[in-house]
């Protein structure tokens, strides 16, 4: 506890419990004090109750979750969130959430920065002064004077953070703020949080990406099953062995570890590696082969041309800095980009763009866009060509079993959890006989256990003969399931960006 000793308490939860309408106890006997200037990390598995704690502090419980029964006492800067209006609380608490796309309110970044103070009726010169101060303190000059819709996800998240900070809250509550960000955006956000802490504000972060926040925290509380089960000092956090950490369901603490590539040399550029020992399934000429492949937008190639071979049974991980065109790369292979150049061939057959769309399956980062039916079963039937009788039915049943989706046949796809949606999308790909699987950031926002599950699934699919290309910024994940790594370089940039 470097900071915050003997300072006033700004957030105090005592004996806080939450029960859902269905009687499930999601928080139980939480006692947590946050002092001024302190940074508290709330860690634990997905579903442990991390987010619920943040909601108790920023007033979303009870204000937005009327079905949740709250007990115990919550005090935030002297206010009781359940007895005051949200706008009163807003003067003391600032919140940043997971999804950068759905938190900004204005079309331009300057209006967004002003938004919080504007609704309060603060004089315009005062607002301007505070924006200038914040931008200066956070080093956020790149965010000024922008059209928000043209900003990247990382920039949007930094903008949200800066906008919240302009309103000068005493406490900032961050709920998995990095779930959708890449490494460089995470770094930017990290530095911005450090600046806010240096200014004496308190920060509460619910995260499982420990490397991102471990060095900022004064302490970390581990939540399991809705209870605080353990408290760590930063030293204790860093001293956790990998094994202990994994048992607790936590992601790597040390940035050096989280950001290290352990997979063998890049498959890319070293063309003709298809002969490489790739398991017994890899016959010569089978699988995906890219030659001088790139995608042009507005006449300019987005990334330097790629030569790569991904035999059946192997997994290629694609890395690259922000804006290197990782998603565009996948979309190009899937035949979704008009300006694709070079050649894509699968199992020895060169594919035209339209054939790419019939051969590849793309699991998008936001999988909600690709589920269309009114039940899991019908989604599968749609994928298999509208039939769900006899042989088709038994195939669907078997596959749902292997993908841990049994018993969910009648559920609406949108009512599934994120992981279930992802697996359903994979099921559809397999049912329509796609053996070229493209995964875009399949582990964004996942905790350790779920990341490991996805890594196992990827491995299993590859072992069953699929050819997998995945784009990720999650190196822990990459190290677990990829055979080869391709570092995508910007077209102009020459050699690949640095990492680790």
């Amino acid at each position: 506890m470097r900071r915050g000793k003997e300072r006033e308490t700004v957030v105090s939860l005592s004996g806080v419990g939450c029960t859902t309408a269905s009687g499930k106890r999601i928080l139980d006997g939480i006692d947590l004090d946050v002092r001024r200037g302190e940074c508290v990390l709330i860690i634990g598995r997905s579903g442990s109750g991390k987010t619920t704690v943040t909601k108790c502090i920023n007033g979303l419980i009870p204000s937005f979750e009327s079905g949740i029964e709250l007990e115990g006492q919550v005090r935030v800067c002297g206010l009781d969130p359940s007895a005051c209006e949200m706008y009163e609380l807003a003067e003391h608490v600032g919140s940043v959430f997971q999804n950068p796309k759905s938190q900004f309110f204005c079309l331009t970044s300057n209006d967004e920065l002003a938004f919080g103070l504007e609704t309060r009726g603060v004089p315009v010169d005062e607002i301007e002064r505070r924006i200038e101060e914040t931008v200066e303190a956070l080093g956020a000059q790149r965010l000024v004077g922008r059209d928000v819709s043209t900003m990247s996800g990382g920039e949007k998240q930094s903008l949200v953070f800066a906008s919240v900070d302009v309103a000068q809250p005493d406490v900032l509550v961050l709920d998995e703020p990095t779930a959708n960000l890449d490494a460089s955006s995470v770094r930017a956000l990290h530095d911005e949080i450090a600046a806010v802490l240096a200014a004496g504000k308190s920060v509460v972060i619910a995260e499982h990406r420990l490397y991102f926040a471990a060095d900022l925290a004064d302490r970390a509380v581990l939540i399991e099953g809705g209870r605080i089960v353990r408290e760590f000092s930063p030293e204790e956090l860093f001293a956790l062995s990998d094994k202990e950490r994994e048992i607790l369901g936590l992601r790597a603490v040390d940035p050096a570890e989280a950001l290290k590539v352990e997979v063998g040399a890049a498959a890319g550029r070293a063309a003709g590696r298809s002969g490489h020992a790739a398991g017994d399934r890899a016959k010569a000429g089978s699988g995906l082969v890219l030659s001088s492949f790139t995608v042009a937008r507005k006449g300019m190639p987005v990334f330097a041309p790629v030569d790569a071979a991904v035999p059946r049974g192997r997994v290629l991980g694609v890395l690259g800095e922000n804006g290197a065109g990782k998603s565009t790369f996948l979309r190009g292979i899937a035949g979704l980009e008009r300006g694709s150049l070079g050649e894509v061939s699968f199992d020895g057959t060169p594919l035209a763009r339209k054939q790419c769309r019939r051969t590849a399956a793309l699991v998008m980062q936001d999988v909600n866009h690709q589920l269309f039916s009114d039940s899991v079963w019908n989604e599968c039937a749609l994928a298999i060509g509208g039939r769900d009788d006899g042989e088709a039915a038994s195939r669907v049943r078997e596959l749902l079993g292997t993908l841990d989706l049994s018993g969910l046949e009648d559920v609406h796809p949108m009512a599934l959890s994120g992981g279930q949606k992802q697996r359903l999308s994979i099921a559809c790909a397999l049912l329509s006989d796609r053996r070229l699987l493209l995964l875009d950031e399949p582990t964004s926002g996942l905790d350790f256990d779920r990341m490991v599950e996805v890594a196992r699934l990827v491995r299993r699919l590859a072992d069953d003969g699929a050819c997998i290309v995945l784009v990720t910024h999650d190196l822990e994940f990459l190290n677990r399931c990829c055979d080869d790594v391709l570092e995508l370089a910007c077209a102009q940039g020459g050699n690949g960006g640095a990492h680790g």
Partner: protein
Amino acid sequence: MIGEGMTAAGPVPQGGTILGGRPRRGALALDPRTLMGVLLAASALAFMGKGVTAELCLVVAVGLLQTLCGHVRMALGFVAAYAALMGVLYVVFPHVGGAAATMFTISFTFARKIYLCLMTGALLVSDSSVHRISAALAKLKVPQSVLIPLTVTFRYFPTLKEEAAHIRDAMSLRSIPAGSRAECFVVPLVMSATSTADELSRAATCRGIENPAPSTDTERLSMRAADWAVLAISALAVAAVALFGGSA
């Protein structure tokens, strides 16, 4: 026009101020309320009887206003398009005829009638950001309960476009029977709109959108002599057309 013009960031403020400030593109920098006044005048003029000369004068006048506000290319474009429109209506449709004439005479005639509105609207939209227009409407006592949804609507258009593109891509990767295409497109779109509505409500509420205090006018709107002059000229134009406009 709506997708492009209104979602753009608008003129970048200059001179060290971060917020507001008038667009400083041309000789005239008008308050959005002034242009709304001109729009009202243009609406009044739309279905008043007026001779071709009067109509031409009015188009040139609004073109001049666009020029003075620094939108020279817009003015030239509108005047040229007006000439083309008149050519089509007076020469091509009556003398060449064909299916196009039956189809488009009405809509082109309507476009001719509301041409001044279109010109002024284009000027208003490209001169002011959505935020500025909404601030102007707030000054005109349009309640926040309309202006907040208005802002959200515009803020959501770019997202909507992105989501729609993603869904179309996802659909093109699956073989979806033609009969259920519409449903397959609409359902994820509506789902995503619903979750955006929920998440955005939470974020905005946490930032104090429900604060009943009157919002700051961060656009620093003010009516100046030039604004009143333009309004007066518009009113005079309406009066003049009413009295001496001639018929058509």
